[in-house]
């Protein structure tokens, strides 16, 4: 069953990244391999680029379930972009055991 808007069907295999909390998005990143994150990144980056106008047309008031999932998925892309574009590893370098956890976050 599709969880994303029809025009983002190519991202359905990555639907598990549509997580509503930054805590979970970061957690999934830490548990994922670089290969898996690269595959997600490679699929989602062009979709974000071509989907920008669509996203600008999506009001947050009364947002549909599919659009909400899409926002969470692209928020995960943001989280994953750091290992892919900057760190070359899942964790922030030299961040050891330290953690900074979200306690208040808005919905879309």
């Amino acid at each position, binding site marked *: 069953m599709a969880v994303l808007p029809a025009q983002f069907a190519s991202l359905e295999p990555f639907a598990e990244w549509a997580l509503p909390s930054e805590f979970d998005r970061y957690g999934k990143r830490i548990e994922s391999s670089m290969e898996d994150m690269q595959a997600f990144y490679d699929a989602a980056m062009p979709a974000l680029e071509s989907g920008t106008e669509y996203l600008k047309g999506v009001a947050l008031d009364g947002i549909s379930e599919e659009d909400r999932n899409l926002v969470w998925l692209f928020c995960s892309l943001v989280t994953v972009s750091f290992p892919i*574009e900057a760190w070359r590893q899942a964790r922030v*370098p030299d961040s050891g055991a330290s953690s900074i956890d979200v306690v*208040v976050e808005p919905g879309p």
Partner: protein
Amino acid sequence: MPHFTKPESGSWTEHFGLATEPVNYDDSISPEFYALEQEAVFKKTWLNVGRVEQLPKNGSFFTKELDGAKTSVIVVRNKDGELRAYHNMCRHRGNKLVWNDYPREETAGMCRQFTCKYHGWRYDLDGKLTFVQQESEFFNLDKADYGLKNVLVDEWQGFVFVNFDPDAAPLKEYMGALGAGLEGYPFGQLTQKHTYRAEIGSNWKLFIDAFMEFYHAPVLHSKQSVSEEARKLQGVGYEALAYDIDGPHAMVSSWGGMSPPKDLSMVKPIERVLRSGLFGPWEGPDLGELPEGINPARHPAWGIDSFLFFPNFMLLIWKPGWYLTYHYWPTSYNTHIFECSLYFEPPKNAFERIQQEMAVVTFKEFGLQDGNTLEATQTMIESGAVTEFPLCDQEVMLRHLHKVVRGYVAEHSAAQTQGHPTAAPTPVSAAS
């Protein structure tokens, strides 16, 4: 080779009348000094504990754990819509009055009155004791004598502060010229809030130190930029546009031309696609003319101002129309809780929501690097192997912070000794 003008005296440090000698950090490594800070600093100064948006209705309340002041407070909006604050403590036998499940965790909500979990005493929102279980069993108990213990509470630009010193000067006066320079900034319009929290294994002042200088940024955070840009940044180093100090408070004004960048190849692909990054969405909301205290050098390359309102409240105003706050709540001499809240204008569409997420996540990636470095600093300073540390002119705000803390402690100790001539002198060095 300075890129930005320094004061006539040649350095910011000398301009503000601060010494240029190496600084001793023994104010950050001992339980004894922390005990003095609790009395002299955290029980004597205005502490920002939240924003008015957290108290939207009459009866809205939140609690705040303040180990620095050795207490917990309840902040509430009473039936008349006024702010009130109390020690979070029942007058019967001292149980913590408001908490859920875990007594050490903060909570928030709406209520008509406060009821103690222990024996059911009740207090109204003005702190008056209104009900005593089996009142007739008590001896001459006058409920009027057992209201909640008041704490001073006041509001500045929508920020809610408490003060445990009943003789404290008014908040507006305390905020001084730096506070006055920010009045009118549309804080109340930027209500889209993300809050982060971390337990940090360092003295509270060391993390403030880290966020009050950008001298470390081109080095510690170099991998956050594309590599060519990182090399350039390290070569140039860092210089602020301006610093200012007023009373115990201080600010640094900084450039930051990343919004939007002149050259798109300077930024990471995700930033190019989202048109957002550390400095927030490149095309942020137009907030109109900003108050005078922002970008005091009136520099066209201005990007961010960081204010420290003593002791532990930092306010960062970013050029693209948003702000964030940092708080550092000590829990012991070498641990503290770090809180960061980022405030944006509510996004108008899904794309703006994702752009804001980019700024939020970038902050977190930086913060993780900063936080871990601190634990490494704390343990080494505690070793005592080296006790004097040279601070450069771009670290002027750190020098000032440690001096102010020592000043408060020295003044408090002097007052104690005067008030109680028999008391032993407190072992504190008042040196800057």
